[in-house]
């Protein structure tokens, strides 16, 4: 119990501590090593948590509570199957960013922001108290926003403001209204924000569905689902690459969906499925089509990300074990793929000063390793056999298969389009004689340097992770265990017929 509490607290508090302490001009040189050390510690701690979870609790929830209750808020943290996988992956990604990002971009200020963001993200993952979770959630976009302001990217900053508001306000409202509702009902509940307690009470004393709608909107904005996706691309293009990567190190929207919306509002979830599924498919297709039209690699990657979010949404909307576990695994895989590709693209940017494919070409001649890395990650991204993407896409399709064959086919078509998009980018940047593809002055590169050792090993590690996940996916399926309870709550009414499920669910929340 005590170990759990310390472990889970250290995971989010350690980066926060380093971010706050590593101040002052004389420390500037030491910031990067200190940050890498901290990130490494967090990775090790979360790996320890993963192993502990697996052996001690078999991926059931392990939780720790720190006693004082102030205004109904209690410091309650926990790790379950989902977070036990998400924590090491997210921490590992941030470590990878700190190691591999170009040093020119990685100034001490940015490093501190990265650590701050890491702390807030991991805080969201471990919180089991709704109010604390919301606090972390709202704060997690702020470092990026301030950084954009400071760099004079006012357009992108304004966009972030809109998004930050659109994803935070519903959550804040959610917590506020929950408080009001509890006060009105007059029931003496000691900890009204405790997620575990809320999930248990949901059976006897369900919350109104519209309240869950707020959390769902917040999550959808954060995922970047159509038509709430506008912020992803400008941010990918304009934001400081390492910090943006950090902000995307955890599939946070997806996480909120499975942590709050599904267990607390199963009926809402069932009712919203007829909207979520088409929305997911639309997002997937829209992202893939727009990615095809892009000339800038970072913009292309942004649309690719949007397209993948559509897959996730479609997967959870399937509301069965393969669909949901496929979506969760796909969320993790997408984050890894995106990080790898974005680091390589950042490397191109740092070397050439542009990421416009019309001005690039033939880089493979001097940078074969970079080309190979890009290609392998791209293949993993579109579910090439043997990688994690194959497993997750296979599961998503299997999940959709029984009741939504058309949706399964749409997912397949979109995957094909995504493959074309990424290969097109690879071909334009790395192959050819350079400059065969049209407009703009070509950036000539007789001495384009190949990957540095630290970049190379990070790329290898990320691809290795995807490969290991693809060949031995069984441990990763642990992510599902926490969601399964919530899922059973939904699946009970009638698994065979989704229409029936919706109707069966309606009378339940009518009163």
């Amino acid at each position: 119990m005590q170990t759990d509490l310390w472990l889970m607290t250290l995971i989010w508090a350690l980066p926060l501590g380093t971010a706050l302490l590593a101040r002052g001009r004389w420390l500037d040189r030491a910031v990067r090593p200190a940050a890498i050390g901290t990130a490494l510690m967090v990775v090790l701690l979360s790996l320890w948590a993963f192993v502990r979870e697996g052996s001690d609790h078999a991926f059931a929830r392990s939780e720790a509570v720190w006693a004082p209750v102030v205004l109904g808020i209690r410091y309650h943290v926990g790790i379950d199957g989902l977070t036990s996988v998400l924590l090491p992956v997210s921490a590992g990604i941030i470590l990878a960013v700190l190691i591999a990002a170009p040093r020119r971009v990685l100034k001490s200020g940015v490093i501190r922001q990265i650590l701050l963001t890491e702390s807030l993200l991991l805080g969201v993952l471990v919180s089991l108290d709704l109010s604390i979770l919301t606090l972390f959630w709202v704060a997690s976009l702020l470092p990026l926003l301030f950084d954009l302001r400071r760099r004079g990217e006012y357009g992108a900053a304004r966009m972030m403001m809109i998004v930050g508001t659109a994803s935070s306000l519903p959550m804040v409202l959610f917590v506020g209204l929950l408080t009001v509702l509890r006060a009105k009902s007059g029931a003496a509940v000691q900890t009204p924000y405790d997620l575990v307690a809320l999930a248990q009470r949901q059976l006897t004393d369900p919350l109104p569905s519209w309240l869950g709608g707020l959390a769902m909107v917040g999550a959808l904005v954060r995922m970047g689902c159509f038509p709430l996706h506008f912020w992803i691309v400008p941010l990918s293009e304009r934001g400081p690459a390492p910090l943006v990567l950090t902000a995307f190190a955890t599939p946070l929207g997806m996480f909120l969906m499975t942590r709050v919306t599904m267990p607390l509002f199963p009926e809402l979830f069932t009712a919203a499925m007829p909207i979520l599924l088409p929305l997911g498919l639309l997002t997937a297709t829209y992202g893939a089509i727009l990615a095809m039209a892009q000339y800038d690699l970072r913009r292309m990657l942004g649309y690719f990300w949007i397209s993948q979010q559509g897959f996730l949404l479609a997967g959870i909307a399937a509301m069965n074990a393969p669909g949901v576990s496929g979506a969760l695994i796909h969320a993790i895989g997408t984050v890894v793929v995106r990080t790898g590709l974005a680091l390589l693209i950042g490397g191109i940017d740092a070397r050439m000063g542009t990421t416009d494919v019309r001005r690039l070409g033939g880089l493979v001649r001097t940078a074969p390793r970079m080309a190979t890395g890009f290609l392998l990650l791209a293949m993993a991204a579109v579910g090439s056999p043997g990688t994690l993407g194959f497993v997750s896409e296979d599961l998503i399709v299997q999940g959709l298969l029984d009741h939504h064959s058309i949706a399964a086919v749409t997912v397949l078509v979109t995957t094909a389009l995504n493959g074309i998009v990424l290969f097109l980018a690879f071909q334009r940047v790395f192959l050819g004689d350079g400059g065969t593809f049209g407009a703009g002055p070509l950036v000539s590169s007789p001495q384009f340097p190949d990957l540095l050792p630290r970049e190379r090993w990070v790329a290898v590690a990320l691809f290795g992770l995807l490969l290991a996940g693809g060949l031995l996916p069984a441990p990763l399926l642990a992510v599902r265990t926490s969601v399964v309870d919530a899922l059973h709550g939904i699946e009970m009414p009638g698994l065979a017929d989704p229409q029936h499920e919706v109707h069966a669910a309606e009378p339940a929340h009518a009163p």
Partner: protein
Amino acid sequence: MIQSPLIWTFAALGPGWPAMGAVLIGALTLLQQRPRESQVVAIAQWTLLLTLGSVLTGAVLWLSHGQQPVDLRLFDIYRSGDYALELRLYLDLSSVVVATVAAVLILATSRFAQRYLHREPGFNRFYALMLTFAAGVLLLVLGGSYDLLLAGWEVVGWTSVLLVGFFQERPGPVRAALRVLVTYRLCDIGLLVSAVALHRWLHSTAFADIFAHLPQSTHGAMPMFIGLGLLVAAMGKSAQIPVGGWLPRAMEGPTASSAVFYGGLSVHMGVYLLLRSAPLLAHSPGARLCVLVIGAVTAVMAALSGQVSADAKSAVAYATISQVGLMFVEIGLNLPRLALLHLTAHSLLRYYQFLRTPSALQDALQRRRAMAGGGDSASVRAVKVGQTSSFQRFLYRLAIERFAIEAALDRWIARPMLAAARALGRREDALVAWLSGNQQPAKDKGDAD
């Protein structure tokens, strides 16, 4: 003795050996700047020999089973809910024969390329890709379910694309590679959809289960639908009209890979897919009719285009397409045994012919010398335009323009789609600019820290 699990495991490792070889070469490349050619060749030869051993062991096991199909279940790769992806192999006449041919041809290619590509910058890359391709082909051929076949199919597709674009610095091969990729990926949707439909219909994609369940469930349009999906996939891989334009363009790759991919193996995989699914197609005369028509039309058109090709490799490529079209016809007529025989003979012959194409000029000169000058007028025949009928001229023009299929696809499908995507993108950019207050981003202002 022959049934011992050790032997079964060895037989099942057929696709595993070349995969290990490819990983080994990849690891060597990562650790050293450039591994020596002899190391790479040694790895390739040994893994391919082991592969051949595994395949032959599988053949012996199949024979010892009285030539009955063997469904070898190994283990679950993963499982979620009711769904599990199993690793299982299926050995029957077609898979054993095609796997043996594949193992032999790839081993021969490895020998051939050792000298042919000596000191070529992409030597190691070629070997890594060829081993990956071998793993893909053997998984495709030996895999016991459509899921595994699909995995192998994808690997074959990716490696083909990369080998077509092997000479990366020339724009031609690179553009050809893109065309191959687009064709493959779009046609692969057919196979995916069929697998999905099979799951839904018979709740399994394992061949053994499907073939066992088929006789009881022949009703409905399902076999037709699945058959058509498989046909689309097979058309892409086997370069049938109207998606066959990639094959003649794929010839700029190294001769060794042209031979093993487009002469010997890759191009026949579509036929193999249909052969594999023959019991399924037997239930759907409609799908078989489509296979027959596509094959027949392709055979005629490709034969005509091949006649007017000006270079040796293109001519051979069209001849290949034409023969594969005939195999489609045989499958359409429900003659799988004949198609299998045709496939085997054709892949061996064509493989050799492709390997000889770089020496075509020399061969021709030798022939001419042997005929002591008298051969010229017999082999080269000039036809005056005035002497041809208008129908002949029309046909000639069509053939040399390759029946304008690619131009039509570009004009009516590819370009409108890209234009629509660009238009959508502009809309979105305008909206984003409006949302961000039309602020021009401060370029390269740098970090203010």
